[in-house]
């Protein structure tokens, strides 16, 4: 019994050592585990932002005077706009068509006279709405600048602004609404999917392809030992990548981390297991690096990107797609991470998502055990 246990420990050690050496010597594993996170983090940290700033906007003021000047000044000072003047509406429309500006604000010649006479003084606003999301945000900013100016105007003229209800907003967790603060935590899930599923699928498939699996099978190593021994190094690699990403997020991108570290470790460890099981299943099914890579990208990477709530809000998707997202492990981790980073330890969110991941893990393990046997046919 004792010698059996010793032999088993020795086999484990041998497998883990071998995997570890292979990771260290294969530049592509290192690239996927450490270079990809850096590239993705920097792309998302710096390149991707939904926060509009310096929106190029055209002003057409038919009759410049102090009122129109003060109106325009409120746009200059808002910080969201880069206003430019145009002599006529035609010129501005041309610029809009040529995509030199994203919107036009047109103060007609009767602007000041209507204002003084107390009549409605309409301002025509045209926004290029090809990008609906940005258009909506731009419209919001224009409204904000307009309200700010009206308040000023009313105060200056000692009038009451006929705005009985004032909206008092309090944004929790991300007061400045910085998009990076919600994108970067979600990115951890994407990166772990890359190491956990894509890399693992390719590596196990490589053993099939190179024929080394055949040699391993004819040793006393049993299938569980082989799989577990193989996965431990990748588990550690994935966790290392996770810690590295989190460290970069906190120190380089200054995303606040408000939850507890243990909760982070627990959630990412569970997710890593799910991702590894998925990677393993893909490699067993495909037994070939090319196919494994393709399937891993389609089944794990793309859904993690689009269906996890990482960028696009799951709640707004059609019902059928929302059901599909239930099978995407990354959605649970993204949800946990966004809470852990920005809100802190929200246990109901945490345990609900952990529970879902645990169920996925059990299901995957059952399938893997059924599919993984020590035979070639």
């Amino acid at each position, binding site marked *: 019994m004792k010698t059996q246990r010793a032999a088993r420990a020795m086999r484990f050690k041998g497998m883990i050592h071998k995997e570890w050496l292979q990771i260290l010597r294969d530049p592509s594993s290192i690239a996927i585990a450490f270079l990809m996170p850096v590239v993705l983090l920097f792309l998302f940290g710096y390149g991707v932002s939904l926060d509009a700033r310096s929106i190029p906007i055209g002003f057409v003021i038919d009759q410049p005077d102090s009122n129109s000047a003060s109106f325009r000044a409120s746009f200059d000072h808002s910080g969201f706009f880069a206003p430019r003047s145009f002599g006529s509406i035609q010129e501005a429309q041309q610029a809009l068509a040529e995509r030199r500006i994203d919107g036009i604000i047109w103060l007609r010649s009767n602007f000041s006279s209507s204002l003084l006479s107390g009549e409605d*003084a*309409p301002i025509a606003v045209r926004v290029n709405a*090809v990008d609906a999301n940005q258009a909506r945000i731009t419209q*919001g900013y224009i409204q904000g600048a307009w309200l700010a100016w009206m308040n000023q105007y009313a105060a200056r003229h000692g009038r009451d602004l006929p705005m009985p209800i004032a909206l008092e907003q309090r944004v929790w967790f991300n007061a400045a609404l910085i998009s990076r603060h919600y994108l970067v935590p979600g990115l951890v899930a994407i990166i772990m999917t890359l190491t956990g599923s894509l890399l693992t699928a390719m590596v196990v498939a490589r053993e099939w392809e190179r024929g080394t699996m055949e040699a391993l099978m004819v040793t006393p190593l049993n299938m569980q030992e082989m799989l577990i021994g193989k996965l431990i190094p990748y588990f550690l690699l994935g966790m290392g990548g996770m810690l590295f990403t989190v460290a970069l997020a906190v120190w380089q991108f200054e995303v606040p981390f408000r939850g507890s570290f243990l909760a982070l470790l627990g959630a990412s460890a569970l997710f890593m297991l799910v991702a590894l099981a998925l990677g393993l299943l893909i490699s067993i099914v495909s037994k070939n690096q090319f196919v494994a890579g393709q399937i891993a990208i389609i089944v794990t990477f793309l859904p993690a990107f689009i269906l996890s709530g990482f960028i*696009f809000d799951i709640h707004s998707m059609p019902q059928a797609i929302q059901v599909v997202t239930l099978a995407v492990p990354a959605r649970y981790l993204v949800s946990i991470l966004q809470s852990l980073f920005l809100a802190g330890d929200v246990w109901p969110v945490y345990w609900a998502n952990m529970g879902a991941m645990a169920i996925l893990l059990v299901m995957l393990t059952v399938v893997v055990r059924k599919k993984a046997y020590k035979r070639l046919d």
Partner: protein
Amino acid sequence: MLKHILALALKEFLALLRDPRSRFVLIGPPIMQLIIFGYAASFDLDHVPVAIYNQDSGAGGRALVSRIEGSPHFEVVSHLDHDAQIPPLVDNKEVLLVLHIGPRFSAHLSQGGATALQVILDGRNSNTALLALNYLRSIVLDYNQHLATNQGQTGPPVKLSMRAWYNEDLDSHWFIIPGIVGLLTLVVTLVVTALSVAREREQGTFDQLLVTPLRPTAILVGKSIPGLVIGIVEATFIIVVAMLWFDIPLRGHVGALYLGLLLFLFSAVGMGLMISAISVTQQQAVLGAFLFLVPAVILSGFATPIANMPEAVQLLTYLDPLRYFLVIVRGVFLEGDGYALLMDQYWPMAIIGMVSLVAAGWLFRHRMY
């Protein structure tokens, strides 16, 4: 020379279409992605879960609540009667925002005075929060004007008459789906061409090609044709689906779109062949394509605007062919652009294509071992 190119192109097509794996790569991912992107990728908000904590018993509060309930963007999921109920609801993501109507809300309003309306938002997803806030603002603004008119006041001195051009209903799908034409065509063309030389190298057939009287230029052109043709077919398929299934209007000149597509494919094929010429194995080619694709998509303005990026990153996007094509496809679809307006997008792609093809040709000859 022409016969050589034809023979090569025919062989490439056969090799691609007879291999079940390549067929899968050509058909599987595009359909998957079209479905996922077409339906799932949207920034529009629908049924945002809202909780209302109405301490007011008057008609003012009720009227506001019914306006919110009537909005398609919001869905009131719970009514609160206690302050302490707010934090768990927001923390647990059960609601995105809580509207707190104070106890003297209606009273203040009927006295003609001003009152505050408090809204608490979950900012974990800043974009969703910002959009929800904007929706709410419009509702409140609208209500304000309604109140003002009722009270016989003139309303605000200046009104904004907002008009959204090109996409009147501000539907994100109109933005995303034409983008998919560019995205998917890039992925498929790049993978097809990136693998073509690497596969031959791995299987040893490339040597066999090089000892034949085929000239490197002929090989290069022959290998480009399948990428171009397949790209055009896939793009056409997606354009048709976008028009007929997703009801996206095609307002501009089809010729301008296809000229852009051709130049775009030309540059994509050039990039693919360059990756292919550098890599020795198929795995490297896939990895190389992946390493090019991810930044190319993210920096193209496909989902997030280039204008929001830092200066240095914006400069980098000028190297990305997808950047130009997205402007073309959206311009033609939604803005009704013709050739003249798109000139500035055409020539950079032509240059990227030329440079990468020449580089690929050079690499062919200098990486024969």
